């Protein structure tokens, strides 16, 4: 029983990380039809910068981590907004080219990070409490999972609030539903594009700093390897659906944890099979609508 509980909660913790990456991907795809391959780079860059600033302020303490997280969020948002303004906007409505540009950026930036910080992972220090465990009904849950779950829940809540309560949220929701109609009504959706990119980048940036806490290290390839899972989560959840991404993130991570424990470390394989199964049964994903792109 305690094993199942442990797997379940660590699974949700990992799912929280997947969600932070996948939420931005899903929103961006839903509104603009762009599958953003550079998303992993936002995450890695935020992880590195958050760590660099955090350790200079106060290494291995809560204050350092908090500042690192803020720096990560800002880095992710700025990097994403620049990507949108400089590269994506020029290729407006040419989806294949937009994907190709993000592919190129993803490859180039990872190489650049390797050049700056080296290709080997760097161990990082974190607050002592995060390295300990909490006993819940006999299961020893690593404390960093609580941080992940809390942050992801907060991000989910904030994004939902933004989408439901603000003017731009309304435009974005309408744009996901029917972009042509929104444009026809005389609303400039391009500013919404930049905002969506910045929000997605901010979530990924937070994810980058939290990923470095989760894995205990920062590495140039961290974002890319998480990105593949985030893609799978996005597709299973239904491209463009935020709640779909949240559900799929938890589902994928829990499946992964259970398969790793009970089926001899076949977690990655189980995730891929889950993706194939979902796509074959319901090609639009769990909560996806019929795509018009």
């Amino acid at each position, binding site marked *: 029983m305690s094993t199942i509980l442990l797997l379940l909660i660590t699974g949700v913790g990992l799912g929280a990380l997947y969600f932070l990456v996948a939420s931005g991907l899903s929103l961006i795809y839903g509104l603009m039809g762009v599958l953003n391959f550079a998303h992993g780079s936002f995450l890695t860059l935020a992880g590195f910068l958050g760590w660099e600033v955090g350790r200079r302020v106060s290494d291995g303490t809560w204050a350092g981590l908090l500042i690192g997280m803020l720096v990560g969020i800002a880095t992710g948002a700025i990097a994403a907004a620049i990507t949108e303004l400089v590269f994506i906007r020029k*290729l407006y409505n040419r989806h294949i080219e937009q994907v190709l540009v993000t592919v190129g950026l993803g490859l180039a930036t990872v190489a650049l990070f390797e050049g700056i910080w080296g290709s080997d992972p760097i161990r990082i220090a974190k607050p002592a409490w995060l390295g300990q465990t909490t006993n819940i009904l006999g299961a020893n849950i690593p404390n960093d999972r609580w941080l992940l779950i809390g942050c992801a829940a907060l991000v989910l809540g904030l994004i939902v609030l933004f989408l439901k309560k603000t003017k731009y949220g309304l435009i974005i929701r309408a744009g996901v539903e029917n972009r042509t109609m929104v444009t026809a009504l005389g609303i400039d959706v391009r500013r919404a594009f930049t905002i969506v990119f910045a929000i997605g980048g901010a979530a990924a940036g937070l994810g980058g700093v939290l990923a470095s806490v989760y894995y205990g290290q920062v590495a140039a390839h961290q974002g890319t390897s998480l990105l*593949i899972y985030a893609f*799978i989560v996005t597709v299973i959840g239904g491209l463009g659906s935020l709640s779909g991404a949240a559900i799929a993130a938890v589902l994928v991570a829990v499946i992964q944890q259970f398969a790793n424990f009970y089926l001899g470390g076949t977690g990655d394989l189980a995730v891929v099979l889950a993706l194939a199964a979902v796509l*074959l049964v319901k090609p639009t994903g769990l909560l996806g609508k019929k795509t018009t792109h």
Partner: protein
Amino acid sequence: MQRFSSIWFKIGIGVALIVVAAVLPLLAINIPGILPGPTYTPGTLSMLAYAMLIAALALSYHLLFGVGGMLSFGHALFFAAGAYGLAVMMRLLAPQVPESAVFLIAIILTLGLAVAVGNLVGALALRVTGISFAMVTLAFAQAFNVLVRRNTGGLTGGEEGVTVPVNFLPDALVGVLNTRNLYWLALAILVIAYLVCVWVQNSRLGHVLAATRENELRVRVLGLRPYTVRLFVFAVAGVLAAVAGIGFVLLQSGATPRITIADFTLTLLVIVVLGGVGYRWGAIVGGIVYTILDQRLSALASSGWIQSLPDVLRIPLSEPLFILGMLFVLVVMFAPGGIAGLAKTLTTRSAKGVRTMDVKASANGQ
């Protein structure tokens, strides 16, 4: 008459290029900065052979993406299946069949495997289109990557990869001195890949495929079946990639998990777009230019004058993939036709006034 002579002209150029490539190992041409040494040296031949195999692989991807409009992120799977398939088959067959037959039977079985995997993956992945198709192919390639890295059945060697059992290979393919034979083998594979592409593209099936890329609904309305056509081409591209993989594993006498990762497929995409989407010779030029750039930029990175630059310049310049990635971004943004597209624009401009402008609609999905 004009058209007739133009076709013979093209065939003539093709044959001439093949002849030049074929006699390179017998000559001592030295191009400093591009080739690591004179053309008869094993080092240079090995690099050129690798470039031609990558070009053959790029041609198979051209068939998928350029002609069929199928954006696959899992094409490395088939290349790796060819490379790993041959090495593993040879190990498995070695105790069972006569020594002289091991190599031949292993090749036949590997090709059979490629046909089977191509049809299986294609049959599943082609049930969805667009981005979902890309994701399913990516997922399959990722699954293969996991299998290989896990050292499944003690056969794939984990992170270390596999080696080809040298004592079962024909003597002509073993040893540094015989690099030129491997070079000719790579050239033959490239020519075969090219001819298969020509054959597929000029067949009725190829026309249906191109039509499906442009307007699937219309093809359906005409009573044709896009699924069958796509599946056939997916399998053909898979087998071609596996053949290139066989050449690769022979050339390198082994394979590592590096060729199974998603980045390797992305590199292919970069090559095809760099060369020019929709152009056969674009894929070849892209493959060769990319490989040579990659190798030479790595050599350049360790050269003295780059090392003496300040960090701001030194770090980006010493990462070949950074330069290639940014070059790719620039090509996508400012020269969507790639190298082939640029060449076409230039030749069309120079022929302006003689013929009417033949502006080919850019072969990208939109």
